[in-house]
């Protein structure tokens, strides 16, 4: 087959020579047609190959996008599950903290936690901060309440006293269940006059509450032993004085506040 460029030159030469030979013209036309047909086949192949490349590229792009979406979904799922575990752990920690620092029945601080709180206040006072007062609170004749109305009623009285003290103080970290029916209240920043007034007010409020029991219900009174912390003294010293004040309140008729500064 004649190369297209040679064919072109041959046609140019024939046109210039102008021989007018029909046989030559037919041959050149035939070769021209064959050349055109070959070029078209080549072009078709090129187009097909190019299309294949484009399709492959598009498929690869789609596969990549699908992979990407799948990975994003996986990461989202991982984060979601991981977050749930974090929340679960946080809630468990919170529950453990509550269990270890709070009294199960009343929700007040337990003895150990309140002791730590008072020790922290003592450190603050000994550093120069304003003082604080402590009050031991004991429910009068609690055994009689339990024996008369049952332990569930006794528990209800304890819970009622706890919530009354907390709402009175406005601080759920200032009162703890010291043991049995005895509570300890921390009055941060209080002086003697103010703490005695607060203690008497609390005694009045508690005494006015009617508890379910019997046809008319009943009321429970409290005795309070109050004292001020003296800078430099130990926890045992201030607690002993508050305890002595409570003992006096009990000995002198109950339902009263005794203050030993």
């Amino acid at each position: 087959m004649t190369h297209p460029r040679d064919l072109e030159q041959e046609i140019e030469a024939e046109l210039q020579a102008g021989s007018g030979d029909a046989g030559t013209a037919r041959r050149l036309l035939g070769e021209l047609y064959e050349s055109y047909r070959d070029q078209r086949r080549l072009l078709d192949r090129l187009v097909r190959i190019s299309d294949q490349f484009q399709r492959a590229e598009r498929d690869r792009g789609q596969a990549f996008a699908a992979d990407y979406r799948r990975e994003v979904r996986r990461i989202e799922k991982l984060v979601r599950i991981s977050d749930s575990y974090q929340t679960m752990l946080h809630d468990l920690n919170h529950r453990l903290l509550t269990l270890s620092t709070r009294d199960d029945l009343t929700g007040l601080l337990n003895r150990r936690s309140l002791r730590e709180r008072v020790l922290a206040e003592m450190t603050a006072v000994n550093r120069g901060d304003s003082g604080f007062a402590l009050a031991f609170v004991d429910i009068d004749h609690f055994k009689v309440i339990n024996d008369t109305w049952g332990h569930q009623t006794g528990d209800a009285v304890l819970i009622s006293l706890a919530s009354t003290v907390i709402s009175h103080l406005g601080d759920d970290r200032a009162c703890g269940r010291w043991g049995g029916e005895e509570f300890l209240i921390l009055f941060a920043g209080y002086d003697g006059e103010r703490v005695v007034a607060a203690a008497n007010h609390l005694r009045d409020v508690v005494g006015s509450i009617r508890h379910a029991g019997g046809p008319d219900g009943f009321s429970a009174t409290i005795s309070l032993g109050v004292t001020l912390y003296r800078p430099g003294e130990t926890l045992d010293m201030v607690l002993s004085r508050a305890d002595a004040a409570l003992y006096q309140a009990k000995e002198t008729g109950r339902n009263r506040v005794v203050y030993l500064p």
Partner: protein
Amino acid sequence: MNLEIAQTNTSPAVSADWESGRILIRGDSYPENSFELYHPLIKWVEAFLANLDRPLRLELELLYMNTSSVRVLMDILDLLESAFQKGRDVGVAWRYDIGNERVAELAVEFKEDCTFPFDITARTEPA
């Protein structure tokens, strides 16, 4: 070719039985390097699925998992899903304590993309 990984404070007990095709993972999982810890298990699962035609059952009694452990478990579930798509008999049984519904909710999250049998059951007795 059985696999046993002893339980520690931060990682679960893992046992994989080649004969019965049963894998058990039990405990908490928050090791320092989850990928290292679970690498033998991943290899075990791949080998089991490649070399045998027996059913494979994964039994889980997991409580807490850190993020990398979650990732590894997702990878294992992906292996099972891929095997299931090829016609293999695979399944997961996730047991949780009846008092800990949140673990059940998490198990449901894991189950989400799995089309193979994935049972989540409450256990009343401690393991």
